[in-house]
């Protein structure tokens, strides 16, 4: 009999192991096991139903790109660019590509909610919509009764739309109050231009597509600054495409943003020295007589008058002096000025970065001045001024005004002057300092937000009333600020709004009724429809412009249409009205603005030191520069699919990441990929330190968005609000503040 030894047992196990490898059984078990554990009833299923396409206009930002929506039944499943659309020219941005997700955004509110207790904590409780409206109406009635109607304010984050008319009508009905907006960098740039161009009857716009050279002062040209529309053309000017030729785009920016990385020339100036550079370029243009004074508007303050003229002012800004302040080589400054003067038409653009805050008036004035010297006003390929839109003279008495109602900047209000703020929930797409808004609120002020999402300004509100998400209601899209041409598009409802969502116009009418007022006529969608109809009739009656129809290949002159109804029908199916009117000439221009009003702004930064940087350099050795992408920086809800860019790749940073040049990091004893504390005189925040070679030594660069909540991750909470750390001006945050960073 065979005895069982240790050797036999080992042999047996060896045999079993060897047999298992060649037997299919274990593999089959593994495969079946995986399948059993992989398939569950909760696995997502795709919709079934008839597939169709709808053409419309994107409303996620003010740009108004033409889009094509793929539908399954009544559900939009994807959004793509509409070919040949005159605004977006066959492109849309990543936010638009994910737009079909927005109506299911986790931050969507599905009923009225109110904040628990006072303060700006995060706990909310449901409240009946009628109660919420009645409470708001009561506050309004009290304000009116106590003669404090000025304490009522409506904040419109995207003025100029048909719904904006309902906001102003509401204020008229209430008998007072403020119609407000938070101005973007573009708004502020346009305002400065109007100060400088005398008696201007239009609005300035950049003719980027026909320019030969663009000098951008930090504007993220390739990162959503002008929507995606001009990007295909601008891409032709990218690095290396025209080797040996002058660069098509010159980017002035301390850090290497994507636009700086791709521009033909990147001028890495010291933070906050843009005005000095613009004046230095003006110096070279005037000194070398590169300025063609016969072609532009009459310049009224170039030479000395009662006050020193612009020529004598910039005399001191020699390339050497500008070099000392900006850190650029004198030859680079001189060469850039010559290139701009020779590569006509050229444009200098400002307006800032969506996260970094607008440029100051001084910078904007210096940049507009440079455009004037470059012969850049009123010529194809440079700065063009578009005429006002045809006036809308509606049947409704309240509508007898052109539809360019100018709201007031919220920053111009006295502190603590708002008692009841009704805020529109549109995503402005740019970051703005919450602390500045807090200042404008009276201690007992209430904020009521009409919004589909609990993000952006809604997070500051006391009461939220749910409204339809983008694509669920009829909206119109007036021209973008600084656009080269007037355009007008419609975004009809693509899918029905859920029953919990109330139209903002209906909410306002109900608040008015609750306050004992009698709103006239229609409200909600019907009122917006009427405003839109009036606008379309005004466009048609003007005989101006052409109409792009997605079903046709060419733009048809509007005056070949049968009637306004035909114009409306084309707009409803995703078309776009585009103005063909000649630009309004700029007849005269003042570098220092009317009555020299821009003089202090230009002069205050020309010594190259921002007053803010006088904070102790020893204590705060770094310069904090916030930045962000258009549409994402403002904290509004964005499609969760954008996590692909912000979390699942390193393509776009997250607000909690403090990026710093490795050399600076090592000098300060910091370690890459470690936790840190970023502090400024305004406070401190916990951050994640990341070494990044593209950041200027001495600078710490932090994105202002997207926070986890706006991306749909409610569990992680808000994340740091970097603007809370930035020094603020009267109008926004400073783009540069002193800061310290240490490991924790």
């Amino acid at each position: 009999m065979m005895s069982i030894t240790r050797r036999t047992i080992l042999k047996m196990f060896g045999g079993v192991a060897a047999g298992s490898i060649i037997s299919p059984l274990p593999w089959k078990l593994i495969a079946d096991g995986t399948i059993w554990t992989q398939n569950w009833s909760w696995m997502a299923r795709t919709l079934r139903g008839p597939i169709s396409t709808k053409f419309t206009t994107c409303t996620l930002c003010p740009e108004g790109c033409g889009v094509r929506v793929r539908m399954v039944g009544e559900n939009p499943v994807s959004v793509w660019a509409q070919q040949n659309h005159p605004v977006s020219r066959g492109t849309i941005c990543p936010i638009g590509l994910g737009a079909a997700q927005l109506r299911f955004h986790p931050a969507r509110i599905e009923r009225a909610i109110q904040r628990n207790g006072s303060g700006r904590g995060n706990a909310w409780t449901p409240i009946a919509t009628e109660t919420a409206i009645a409470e708001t109406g009561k506050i309004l009635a009290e304000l009116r009764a106590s003669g404090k109607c000025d304490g009522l304010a409506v904040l419109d984050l995207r003025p100029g739309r048909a719904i904006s008319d309902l906001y102003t009508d509401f204020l008229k009905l209430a008998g007072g109050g403020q119609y407000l907006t938070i101005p973007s960098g573009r708004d502020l740039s346009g305002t400065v231009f109007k100060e400088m161009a005398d008696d201007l009857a239009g609005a300035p716009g950049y003719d980027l597509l026909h320019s030969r050279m663009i000098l951008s002062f930090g504007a993220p040209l390739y990162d959503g600054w002008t929507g995606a529309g001009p990007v295909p053309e601008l891409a032709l000017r990218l690095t290396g495409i025209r080797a040996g030729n002058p660069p098509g785009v010159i980017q002035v920016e301390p850090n290497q943003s994507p636009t700086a990385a791709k521009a033909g020339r990147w001028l890495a100036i010291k933070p906050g020295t843009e005005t000095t550079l613009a004046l230095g370029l003006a110096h070279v243009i005037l000194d070398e007589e590169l300025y063609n004074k016969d072609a532009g508007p009459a310049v009224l303050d170039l030479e000395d008058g009662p006050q020193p003229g612009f020529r004598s002012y910039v005399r001191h800004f020699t390339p050497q002096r500008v070099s000392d302040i900006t850190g650029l080589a004198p030859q680079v400054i001189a060469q850039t000025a010559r290139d701009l003067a020779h590569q006509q038409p050229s444009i200098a653009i400002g307006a800032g970065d969506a996260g970094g805050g607008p440029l100051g008036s001084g910078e904007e004035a210096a940049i507009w001045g440079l455009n004037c010297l470059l012969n850049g006003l009123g010529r194809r390929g440079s700065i063009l001024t578009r005429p006002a839109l045809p006036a809308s003279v509606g049947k409704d008495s309240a509508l007898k005004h052109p539809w360019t109602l100018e709201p007031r900047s919220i920053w111009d209000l006295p502190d603590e002057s708002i008692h009841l703020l009704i805020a529109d929930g549109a995503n402005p797409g740019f970051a703005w300092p919450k602390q500045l808004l807090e200042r404008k609120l009276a201690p007992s002020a209430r904020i009521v937000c009409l919004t589909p999402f609990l993000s952006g300004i809604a997070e500051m509100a006391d009461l939220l009333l749910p409204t339809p998400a983008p694509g669920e209601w009829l909206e119109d899209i007036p021209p973008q600020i600084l656009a080269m041409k007037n355009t007008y598009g419609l975004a009809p409802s693509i899918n029905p709004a859920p029953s919990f969502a109330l139209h903002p116009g209906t909410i306002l009418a109900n608040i008015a009724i609750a306050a004992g007022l009698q709103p006239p006529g229609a409200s909600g969608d019907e009122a917006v429809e009427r405003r839109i109809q009036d606008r379309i009739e005004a466009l048609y009656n003007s005989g101006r412009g052409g109409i792009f129809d997605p079903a046709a290949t060419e733009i048809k002159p509007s005056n070949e249409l049968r009637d306004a109804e035909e114009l409306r029908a084309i707009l409803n199916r995703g078309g776009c009205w585009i103005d063909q009117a000649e630009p309004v000439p700029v007849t005269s221009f003042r570098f220092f603005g009317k009555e020299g009003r821009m003089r202090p702004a230009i002069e205050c930064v020309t010594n190259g030191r921002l007053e803010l940087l006088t904070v102790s350099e020893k204590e705060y050795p770094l310069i904090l520069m916030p930045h962000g992408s258009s549409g994402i920086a403002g904290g509004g809800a964005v499609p969760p699919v954008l996590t692909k860019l912000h979390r699942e790749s390193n393509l776009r940073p997250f607000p909690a990441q403090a990026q710093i040049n490795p050399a600076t990091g090592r000098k300060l004893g910091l370690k890459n990929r470690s936790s840190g504390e970023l502090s400024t005189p305004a406070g401190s925040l916990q951050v994640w330190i990341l070494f990044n070679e593209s950041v200027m030594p001495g600078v710490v660069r932090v994105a202002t968005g997207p926070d986890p909540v706006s991306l749909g991750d409610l569990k992680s909470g808000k994340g740091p609000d970097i603007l809370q750390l930035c020094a603020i001006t009267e109008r926004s945050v400073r783009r540069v503040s002193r800061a310290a960073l240490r490991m924790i």
Partner: protein
Amino acid sequence: MVIDLDRCTGCGACMVACAVENNLPTPPVEAQDNRGLTWLRVYQCGNGRTFPDFKTVFIPVPCMQCDHAPCIHVCPVTAVDYDTETGIVGQIPERCMGCRYCMAACPYHARTFNWWDPVWPKGMEKSLNPDVSPRMRGTAEKCNFCHGRLHRAREKAASEGRRDLNPGEYIPACVEACPTRAIHFGDLQDSEDPVAKLSKSPHAFRLLESLRTFPKVFYLSRQDWVKDVGKSRLEMLRKDIYRDSESESNG
């Protein structure tokens, strides 16, 4: 496919379009960053120098659809498939048992793994592309040049009595979405096709050519340092700009 790196601005529209088209979920909150599913990842790479001489290139990396695909050879359950007509390397999730050999074999990091059940925020599955089934947990997946789009185009052609597709009738989502028109798509076998011509340009190169995987994705750049990153220094794709090490100079 030919991707012009001198035109790519790193906007990421291609990544988002890819995720929308192919029903790629967002990872759960507790997932580590960079662990989500991406069929196309845009890497930001540097030239190895430091500020202000630092230069950036954005490199979109889909599956290279290698002609000699290592992922095919290592799969024990034949879940990786090669279509001889189109040259597209396909992935059959129902067969995949999750061993991840293919991920280890792919030199381009083009494959990702379903670590979690694909879950979308409540209701959001109503916005999924009906032409592409969501894959299950425990399977590897990758870019297939938008197979759903190819099927749709073929069905349309068939309904019009054609066997062949017209030029431009079928393009992957990334090609459609790219605002700078950096991604070109066509038939590499047809010498008259503009894309085949671009792939023969003196500025064209393929990633890690020395591995002889013969990718069907070509890149274009007129900058030598970019070609150098792509041809031989792909480890930079992983390190990208947030590098731990001291700067190394490569020119």
